[in-house]
């Protein structure tokens, strides 16, 4: 019976530890929230919104790469699906409120994600990546050819409209706080998912798929659900981005964009919640800074170099390396 008491002790200490980690996470969330609330006082809101949109995109992508172990090379398609759908709706139906346009754009990306997922999910590793890439290219050519997208020119002058028909979003500050709310919502959703029973199964699948199968999990269904959620949030990022910049363009659908989100996620740290946010902030900033200076034509090679350096020397990314460092030196 002495054994039973140690068992309960250990159990309690585990629950305690969970709680203290939970608290740490909440504190971190709070710090992030305060920083983002104050940010427009020191930085240009449109630039901040760009960061937030890409951060949400990368957070969505990381749900797959970091927590499910699936490398999609076609996430641009979902960004673009959200982007074009919302752009088209807001441009053509003036009665539509902004949030409806965004919701329908997100729904379009979700459905597209379901289609991609059903086709691709049975394949693994490089084959999965290639199928998602191929499908995303199909979507790209659709957006080039379709009559309503404006082809090479894209859609311009998408009205920002009124949120709930009330708040005028043409004001950059109003727009910023709306984007911030959407971003935080998406971030918290992913945080919740990762910690949920479903998230545990995703982790198990990532770490040892055959074992997960032998424990009775139909892994394809779990992967599909993760894929659809990820596509949905990527679409949300695209929809919001269109409203911010009043623009939907082929850039969003190009495979270059699929590569960029991989870069952001790896650079910030896969499998950490904050990693993709930091990665997106870093990349967007760097692109902006370089474009200002004399190195404007060198953006891609410089990003490429950083990418190589990250993969070779800092596998865990910025946030991952910081976490490792803290773990080593603080415990």
């Amino acid at each position, binding site marked *: 019976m002495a054994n039973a008491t*140690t*068992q309960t002790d250990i159990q309690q200490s585990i629950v305690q530890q969970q709680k203290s980690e939970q608290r740490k996470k909440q504190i971190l969330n709070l710090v992030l929230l305060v920083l983002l609330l104050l940010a427009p006082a020191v930085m240009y809101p449109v630039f901040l919104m760009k960061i937030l949109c890409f951060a949400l995109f990368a957070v969505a992508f990381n749900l797959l790469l970091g927590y499910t172990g699936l490398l999609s090379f076609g996430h641009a398609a979902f960004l673009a699906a959200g982007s074009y759908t919302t752009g088209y709706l807001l441009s053509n139906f003036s009665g539509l409120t902004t949030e409806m346009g965004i919701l329908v754009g997100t729904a379009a990306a979700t459905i597209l994600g379901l289609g991609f997922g059903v086709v691709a999910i049975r394949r693994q590793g490089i084959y999965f990546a290639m199928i998602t890439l191929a499908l995303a290219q199909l979507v790209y050519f659709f957006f080039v050819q379709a009559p309503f997208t404006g082809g090479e020119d894209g859609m311009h002058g998408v009205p920002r409209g009124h949120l709930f028909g009330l708040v005028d979003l043409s004001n950059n500050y109003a727009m910023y706080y709306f984007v911030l709310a959407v971003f935080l919502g998406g971030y918290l959703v992913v945080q919740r998912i990762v910690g949920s029973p*479903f998230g545990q*199964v995703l982790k198990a699948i990532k770490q040892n798929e055959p074992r997960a199968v032998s424990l*009775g999990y139909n892994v394809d269904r779990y992967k599909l659900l993760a894929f659809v959620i990820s596509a949905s949030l990527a679409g949300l990022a695209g929809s919001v981005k269109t409203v911010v910049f009043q623009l939907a363009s082929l850039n969003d659908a190009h495979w270059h964009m699929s590569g960029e989100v991989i870069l952001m996620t790896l650079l910030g740290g896969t499998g950490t919640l904050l990693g993709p946010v930091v990665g997106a902030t870093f990349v967007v900033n760097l692109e902006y800074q370089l474009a200002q200076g004399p190195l404007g034509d060198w953006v891609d090679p410089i990003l490429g170099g950083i990418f190589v350096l990250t993969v070779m020397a800092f596998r865990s990314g910025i946030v991952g390396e910081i976490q490792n460092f803290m773990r080593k030196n603080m415990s």
Partner: protein
Amino acid sequence: MSDPFVLETQSLVKEFKGFVAVDDVNLKVQSGHIHALIGPNGAGKTTVFNLLTKFLIPTRGKILFKGEDITSMKSAAIARKGVVRSFQISAVFPHMTALENIRVALQSFEGNSFRFWKSGESLNKLNERCMELLDSVGLTEFANTTTVELAYGRKRALELATTLAMEPELLLLDEPTQGMGSEDVDRVVELVRKAAQGRTVLMVEHNLGVVSKLCDRVTVLAQGSVLTEGDYQQVSDDPRVREVYMGGTATKKQEAAE
């Protein structure tokens, strides 16, 4: 109950592009037995295992579990029915704690695993059962250790505990003592014996010492088909068995005898 055989295969065949890896295997595993599948390297033991758990699709033949035809079922569905396997290379979730490893198995029956909106704390009610299972394999103090940091023997013990969490009726163990020192081997033998209470075990095993200690019945495979079957004494006295082990793989026999 009525059917004394938990698992039965009928004329099981697996061909890989013309190479017959498993040839007309009729296997009957009696309820409550610890049944060993032995044979020299390349005899098709692991292939049979993979067929039984649907990690490979049989070319021909039938697999029956408690009289029910499970030939066309999927791996995950079979696991839910109570046929759970372990793997040759230790199969754990390396970046989860020992407790979480087992919890993932228990969760499989909770029916809440698609609930991505639920808090992770809802899983804590499974902790008690996890601790019991960890205790049964002597891992209590490692409950909160990340699995990758556990020694090899402990990983295998954890794997067994995870498998037992599934409450399998039929436990399939693929070389549970592979790559272990003699101390660990003895521990695993005890664990398997304990685990086998109230259930049936089919194991692939190279270590004949382990087989002689544990198993009620032994099936010898050679070149994809069943050579002979019987209890350990019968099988080890069979001259044909000696021949397949000695002929060409004499060293194997010596190794196994140790």
